[in-house]
């Protein structure tokens, strides 16, 4: 018998605008000692389905309309709050997406770890602490005795996720629900956490539900894959079946959206558009302390029409390089030469003229768009500011931009919050292109987007790059995305370039240990190669 057997689960949200069916009759099961992955884009109902099993969907507005969820033969959906509470944290434990916000910042991790033990098992405080130390050790926290009384902010994201995992496992649950546990983490940390989850699951022989938006992430660990779309299951199968013989068109689309190929190299170029020499950008850290050397002695060229990829983990300085070139952060030393002009010495009016030729696209389009401005205002502003269009012709210019980035003209009077993430990124791209720049810095432009949307935006950027003859610096922590788009790739580590080369060179013949480590961290390599 399956450990958890969900049948025809239906969950809806009752809002002022009517009832919205989030989960529409899904059935799946989880066996002891197996990992069931639930894959779907945001809004597909995958998280809601799992939260509703444990009574963690607030009711109202949530409402469970029907179905059964048999956990060891007992129906979770029929239990009252008291019975559910007995199961939560003891028999079924959870790990959440963002370890930064999921741990209580006001309590030491030790206290938070011991809580489920103290509450469910009524063990003595000393014994609970002993057990917490053991588990911290097991999930790979260095020197648990010294860190158990620290607060969450004293740990890195990856370490916090380890603490979350320890907390979930402290009562030896039979089922673990992991909701996008690696989405907020860097690619190398992601690989470590995935490995850890798989190891612990194997060792304890427990069932796992692994929720993710990214098929590639679960490629190495899932036994069964359930693909969800708009509240329904479109396909269920084992790992091999899904990756090699997917039947449903949506699954195929998800698989196709995983970037795998390399771009063909550009023909030889004479004079580069941008020459960066010995660039250093340091941030002072209060007096008496060593400055943070975010970018430390970096030199490279970007040729006209080239897409240069910049990869590295958070803190490697990749975003800072882009911002330094655009002079959005003060440069400590070094030279940035743009088409024969030395940028680091420009001031005032000259800088403004230069800025028109260089634009930036940010990771979070929602944060970088003014919520009080319509699409029209957002796109018209740079056109007028830089004198590209006159008051009379500006409307035409805005519509042309909207066509270029694939936004329907009917949306012209809408505000940012009325758009989806992908559409907002289109607006942001449109705004960046409004000044007809020659050079664009794209800082993680797709990492906040769902996989299929990500693929659309990447295609758009590629097409626009050709149409506008753009030179691009493409910053990302995702190697696969960069490989797909970039002509050349620089690998950054601690503010320095450790390796550079074409996508194929780097992927097939990595020279440096760090590059190899990055490559090995890409999820699903074995199945996607």
């Amino acid at each position, binding site marked *: 018998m399956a450990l958890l057997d969900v049948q025809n689960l239906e969950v809806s949200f009752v809002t002022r605008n009517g009832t919205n069916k989030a989960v529409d009759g899904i059935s799946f099961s989880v066996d002891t000692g197996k990992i069931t992955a639930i894959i779907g884009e945001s809004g597909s109902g995958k998280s809601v389905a799992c939260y509703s099993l*444990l009574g*963690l969907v607030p009711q109202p507005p949530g409402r469970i309309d029907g179905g059964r969820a048999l956990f060891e033969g007992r129906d979770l959906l029929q239990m009252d709050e008291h019975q*559910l*509470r*007995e*199961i*939560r*944290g*003891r028999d079924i*434990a*959870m790990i*959440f997406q*963002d370890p930064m*916000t*999921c*741990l*209580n*910042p*006001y*309590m030491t991790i030790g206290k938070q770890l011991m*809580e*489920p033990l103290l*509450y*469910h098992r009524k063990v003595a405080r000393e014994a609970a602490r002993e057990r917490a130390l053991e588990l911290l050790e097991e999930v790979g926290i260095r020197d648990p005795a010294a860190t158990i009384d620290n*607060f969450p*902010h*004293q740990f890195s994201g990856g370490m916090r996720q380890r603490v*979350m995992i320890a*907390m979930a496992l402290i009562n030896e649950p039979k089922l673990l629900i992991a909701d996008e546990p690696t989405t907020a983490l860097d690619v190398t940390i992601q690989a470590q956490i995935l490995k850890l989850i798989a190891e612990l699951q194997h060792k304890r022989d427990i069932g796992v539900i692994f929720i993710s938006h990214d098929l590639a992430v679960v490629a190495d660990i899932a036994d069964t894959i359930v693909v969800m779309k708009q509240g329904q299951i479109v396909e269920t199968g084992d790992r091999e079946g899904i990756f090699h013989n997917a039947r449903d068109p949506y699954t195929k689309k998800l698989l196709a959206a995983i970037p795998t190929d390399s771009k063909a190299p550009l023909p030889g170029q004479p004079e580069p558009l941008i020459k960066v020499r010995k660039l250093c950008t340091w941030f002072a850290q209060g007096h008496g302390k060593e400055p943070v050397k975010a970018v430390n002695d970096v030199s490279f060229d970007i040729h006209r029409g080239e897409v240069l990829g910049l990869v590295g983990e958070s803190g490697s300085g990749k975003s800072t390089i882009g911002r330094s070139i655009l002079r959005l952060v003060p440069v400590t030393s070094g030279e940035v030469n743009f088409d024969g002009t030395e940028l680091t010495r420009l001031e005032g009016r000259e800088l403004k003229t230069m800025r028109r030729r260089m634009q930036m696209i940010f990771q979070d389009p929602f944060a970088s768009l003014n919520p009080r401005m319509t699409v029209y205002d957002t796109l018209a502003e740079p056109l007028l500011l830089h004198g590209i269009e006159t008051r009379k012709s500006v409307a035409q210019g805005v519509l042309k931009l909207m066509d270029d980035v694939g936004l329907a003209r009917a949306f012209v009077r809408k505000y940012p919050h009325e758009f989806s993430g992908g559409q907002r990124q289109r607006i942001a791209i449109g705004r960046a292109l409004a000044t007809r720049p020659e050079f664009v810095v794209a800082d993680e432009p797709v990492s906040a987007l769902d996989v299929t949307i990500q693929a659309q935006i990447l295609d758009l950027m590629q097409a626009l790059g050709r149409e506008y003859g753009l030179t691009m610096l493409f910053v990302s922590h995702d190697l696969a995305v960069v490989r797909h788009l970039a002509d050349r790739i620089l690998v950054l580590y601690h503010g320095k370039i450790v390796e550079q080369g074409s996508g194929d060179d780097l992927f097939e013949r990595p020279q440096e240990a760090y590059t190899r480590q990055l490559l090995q961290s890409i999820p699903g390599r074995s199945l996607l190669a």
Partner: protein
Amino acid sequence: MWRFITMRLLQAIPVILVVITATFFLVRMAPGGPFDSEKPVTREVKAALEAQYKLDLPLYQQYFSYLGDLAHGDLGPSFKYSGRSVNELIAAGFPVTAELGLYALLVALGIGCLAGIFAALRPNTPQDYIPMSAAMIGICMPSFLLGPLLVLVFGIYLDWLPVSGWGDIPGDKILPSITLGAAYAAYIARLGRAGMLEVLNQDYIRTARAKGLPEWQVVLKHSLRGGMIPVVAFLGPAFAGLLAGSFVVETIFQIPGLGRFYVQAAFNRDYTMILGTTVFLSVLIVLFNLLSDILAAWMNPRLRAQYGK
């Protein structure tokens, strides 16, 4: 931490200096003087009085001489209560005001926190609307209206509590404390509700629920600390407001506190008394603001680590 406190205390010096200077010259600009009364005194007597209190010197000299005395902690003699110094008068009146303020603060914190938490647990239901509407009324109702109303209901119609006095009849401290604390209870309720609501929507509260903790533990152990930080940060300004408000309440309930001296001093043009009370209160307010900031920072482990260095 000590560095932070020292910095804040140093920053307070110019603030207090500005308060002293502004008060000093504003009071002098008001028409009339301490020795003008209905019964005219002879020119010689007035001149002698003014010489005794150094009022015959040029204004700037009076100002610097006042600052000099102040540096020694001497607030000068009272112009109205001859033979008594401002220091003595403050020492006599302040304990009463402080006691009233303390009780009012307890009333405000007790009622405010409970109402705020209670409302936040079930937002947008009657459990939220009723205490929050009451809080809105509490904020809008001035103490000079609430005080007499309470006296009327509990002192006269129901005859449960004494209508005035302080420490003479058992129970006479209840009505003034409630009158003074009510508006702050209302503010604290609203702040507490907002703080708790924000925390209760955090991801880590979901984590706590996923651990299977009962709801009371989720609220008390996981939410309260974060949710109450805005309330703690408000305590400093609230204290200032309580001191200012106590003057009205002391007048309504005939309480011999500092407030009544202060108000009378203004009518009497008792220059040193006005200045002395102002300086004394502004120092207290600065200190309490510092105290509530330290407390709020200490409650947040991240800030604690920052200032701890």
